[in-house]
């Protein structure tokens, strides 16, 4: 199969993301990249756990004083839903239904932007309400680094998906861009998985531990 080949839903291969050598390489390479990213976030989690509630004085904020579960819960739900919608998008990609794929990607991006907005509100709230800024304590540095790295990944993922949607809006699916959509959705799932751990380790453990 060739990257410039034209397809119909009938001739479209079952695994379009791996139909060409380039696609196969991208698929495997991206999984390896996510392996490296896992170690990166593991290191950030380790830093966070080592520095959790490590503050210079009683006046400085600690986790149980500032976190609120309702906001974290809403953010979790929004992001997890965006993972499902990206699954739908890839389902339609595999069925060679470009329009539906774009539509579900649009929903994914919208949910991602919602999440990002909530996170920006959360950071704004902490800094203005509690004076919980990056340089307040070792704990604040660790918190903003871990959650901020995740937020940075969300921004990058959203930019990536929007670029793909706009770039390909007029020309539909091909074996050249199918792997690109596929790995972008893998990236989005990874961001979700990391958030599940952030919700547990930062917010849930922050309320009880």
């Amino acid at each position, binding site marked *: 199969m060739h*990257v*410039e080949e034209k397809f119909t839903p009938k001739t479209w291969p079952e695994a379009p993301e791996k139909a060409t*050598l380039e696609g*196969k*390489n991208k698929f*495997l*390479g991206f999984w*390896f*990249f996510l*392996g*490296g*990213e896992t*170690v*990166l976030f593991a*290191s*950030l989690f*380790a*830093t966070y756990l*080592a*520095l959790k509630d*490590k*503050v*210079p004085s009683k006046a*400085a904020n600690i986790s149980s004083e500032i976190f609120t579960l309702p906001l974290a819960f809403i953010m979790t739900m929004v992001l997890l839903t965006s993972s499902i919608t990206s699954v739908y998008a890839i389902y339609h990609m595999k069925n060679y239904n470009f329009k539906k794929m774009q539509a579900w990607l649009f929903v994914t991006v919208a949910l991602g932007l919602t999440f990002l907005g909530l996170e920006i509100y959360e950071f704004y709230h902490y800094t203005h309400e509690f004076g919980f800024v*990056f*340089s*307040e*304590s*070792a*704990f*604040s*540095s*660790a918190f903003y*680094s871990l959650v901020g790295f995740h937020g940075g990944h969300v921004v990058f993922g959203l*930019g*990536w998906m929007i*670029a*793909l949607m706009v*770039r390909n809006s007029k020309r539909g699916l091909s074996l*050249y861009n199918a792997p*690109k959509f596929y790995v972008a959705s893998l990236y989005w799932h990874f961001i979700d998985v990391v958030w599940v751990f952030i919700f547990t380790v930062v917010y849930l453990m922050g309320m009880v531990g």
Partner: protein
Amino acid sequence: MSSIAQKRGFGATLWDYMTTVDHKKIAILYLAAGGFFFVLGGIEALIIRIQLAIPNSNFVAAGFFNELLTMHGVTMIFFAAMPILIGFMNLIMPLQIGARDVAFPFLNSLGFWLFFFGGLLLNISWFTNGGAPAAGWTSYASLSIHSTGHGIDYYALGIQISGFGTLMGGINFLVTLINMRAPGMTYMRMPMFSWTTFVASALILFAFPPLTVALFLLTFDRMFGGNFFNVTMGGNTIIWEHFFWIFGHPEVYILILPAFGIFSEIFSTFSRKRLFGYSSMVFATVLIGFLGFMVWAHHMFTVGLGNIANAIFAVASFAIAVPTGIKIFNWLFTMWGGSIKFTTPMLYAAAFIPSFIMGGVTGIMVATAPADYQFHDTYFVVAHFHYVIVGGVVLAILAGTHFYWPKAFGTMLNETLGKITFALFLIGFHLTFFIQHFLGLMGMPRRIASYNSGQGLDLGNMISTVGAGLMGIAVIILLYNIVITQVKNVRVGNDPWEDGRTLEWALPSPPPFYNFKQLPLVRGLDTYWLEKMEGNKGITPAEPVGDIHMPNGSILPVFISLGFFIASFGAIYRTVYSWGLAALIIGLVIAFGSMLLRSLKDDHGFHIPKSELMKDDKNKGVKA
């Protein structure tokens, strides 16, 4: 683009190398840049040794001495040894597995330019008024966050940028080795160097992210008001030590495994025997890679992690001696009964075994936690790690330079000069570092700028300096050898050592840019040797001649790297100069803008038509 040689101007050649995605040209870039940094790190080492040659010396000031020893370590590890080995991986591995290029040619080029600009950034610190980083190559946080000037900032960002490049290289090699092996090239037929590339790449993938995080934390602490290592704000400096060594110990194996690979190829080639115990060699390589992640705390025995932690890490460290021993014996048995030719690469390989074993034995000594309290931070440790790094990695680099020179450049380095280089380097190496064991045992601490006479350290230090001078002369002779070889430009054929066993020797020297006109059919381990023994001229092809798909070159990797380079200056001087913030933003815009451009612009590559391949065949006699 045709493989027919054309005379071109300097500008065109420069542009070609800046935009190339050909793994062989990128390998030459890696070797050249790595070689440059190797000479730089060597000059730093010579100045260190001149300062220490006599007691109470004032050759350099103490502060400058700290910069020298820091930059010597950082340059040699990150910007000399690793890039040169990655250069060999780039040059040889795709040829060995019968691939036309690596899996991600664009990323390959990006990896090189990130490394290059990272090294450039770090070395620019010499010329700034704060000077170079001076907290040691380990840059422990308790020292580094209090360091004045901007040296540590350059350290953090220079290594960060080049680390991204290395990570990409690792992923690239892994995918290449898994997806792009020629028909018949099963995992257990892969040449040893390709296997060690595989394991070293996996180590890069999992060892570099902790370093990335550690450097980010250091960057945040020094430039953006973070408090990770600031104890008065609740921080903890041990976090840096853990991350640094979780990276740092696998890094040792990232360096030594490819070195083992190069020596394995040399031993079997010049013993004219297949590698003894191939499968146990593979097993030992993988096991070393695995255990390499389990031992980082043996660098931290004196931190006070407790007896149980120290005991566990000590035992795990001893365990690594087992697979390494397997390898040593396999090399010895490869030579045993072989019809040995002592060429320059083989001399290095033979000298490597006793040298490396000495480093291994002192390794067991320093891994013994109670004894390590005596050895820690003395010249004994300096002697130990130079025995493994110079006696292992640098000897492999020098051996590989002679061995693979014809594959990269189509000429043979002079053997007589090569043997002189070898003798001088080997004698100089042992003269420099053997005595340092005893200096350490007598109590000379590492990283000191001077010492008093009358402590029994004078003679040993003088001997050590003389040895360093011999190594310096050896490298100068090697450079002279390279120059006269390229000036004479005597072209050689496919298999100039006459005993090549693996696929790279079946190709012309240097190979055409598409490597294989027809992908080869691999019929066993040492497939080229098998074909030669059966009287065949070339390798059995696995496909008819057809159009070949090749990737397009691109200048974007240079721009992405340049963007991060500019942004680094912005981050370093953000609070000092008004242009800092602007430079930070402009740099990031260039970097991410170039990435976006890469994503938006379709790049389908191009095809070399069959007719042109047939024409090449007639002109140059290229055989698959």
